[in-house]
């Protein structure tokens, strides 16, 4: 397997955590994985992003060259990144905050014929569960369900190492809800 996953959103949406969870989980599965965040002054201006690569072999460059999957959590990221990192397999959009643009859709279609666009109202769902902060985990659930990149049990194990009890319950719920959409 070889996946290049691009994840973008606003600083507060937990896109970096989402990337790290994927990375930790992949390594738990004895895969190779790299994680590369945006950092420094780049983060200013509303968007944060990270790049995750997962492979059965050693990963040479942590930088996305041919994204297979992209997860876009808000509108500025949609406008800024989608044309630059067109995924070949899956594009996950947080439709709670993104209004698709015809021009961008067209552009993508041109370069990624077989792309599947998965729309998840992640923020709204998270809000319903109890906290918009877990929109990233909702998205993660959706990602795992659709792509099977990583075993969901491994993800749960990783989550349980990261959160205290109260937060864990919330996060696991978000994961499950996302998984079941």
């Amino acid at each position, binding site marked *: 397997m070889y996946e290049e996953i691009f994840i973008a959103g*606003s600083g507060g949406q937990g896109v970096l955590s989402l990337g790290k969870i994927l990375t930790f989980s992949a390594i738990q599965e004895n895969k190779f994985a790299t994680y590369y965040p945006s950092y420094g002054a780049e983060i200013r*201006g*509303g*968007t944060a992003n990270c790049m995750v690569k997962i492979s059965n072999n050693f990963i040479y460059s942590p930088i996305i060259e041919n994204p297979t999957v992209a997860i876009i959590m*808000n*509108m*500025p*990221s949609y*406008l800024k990144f989608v044309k630059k990192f067109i995924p070949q397999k899956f594009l996950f959009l947080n439709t709670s*905050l993104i209004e698709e643009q015809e021009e961008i859709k067209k552009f993508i279609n041109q370069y990624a014929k077989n792309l599947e666009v998965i729309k998840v109202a992640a923020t709204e769902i998270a809000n319903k569960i109890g906290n918009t902060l877990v929109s990233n985990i909702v998205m993660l659930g959706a990602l795992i369900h659709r792509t099977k990149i990583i075993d969901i049990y491994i993800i749960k194990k990783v989550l349980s190492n990261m959160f205290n009890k109260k937060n864990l319950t919330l996060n696991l719920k978000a994961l499950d809800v996302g998984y079941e959409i």
Partner: protein
Amino acid sequence: MRVLTKKFKIVIETQYCKGCQFCIETCPQGVLGLSEKINKLGYRYVEVINPQNCTGCGRCYIMCPDYLIEIFEEK
């Protein structure tokens, strides 16, 4: 009772608003409010909710860190 003898026009470049709310907080007349919508920068942005109350005091102009607000006097 205060009588408004002048009318003021508030021009805000809302598409660049970052939603800091400084203008809203500082306006003594409750002219401004925060929209539920999100602009292309990804922020909930300011909107003029009570334009008629504006006294042209300029506090909002002075506070806006993104210099998005301009006030014109209409005669």
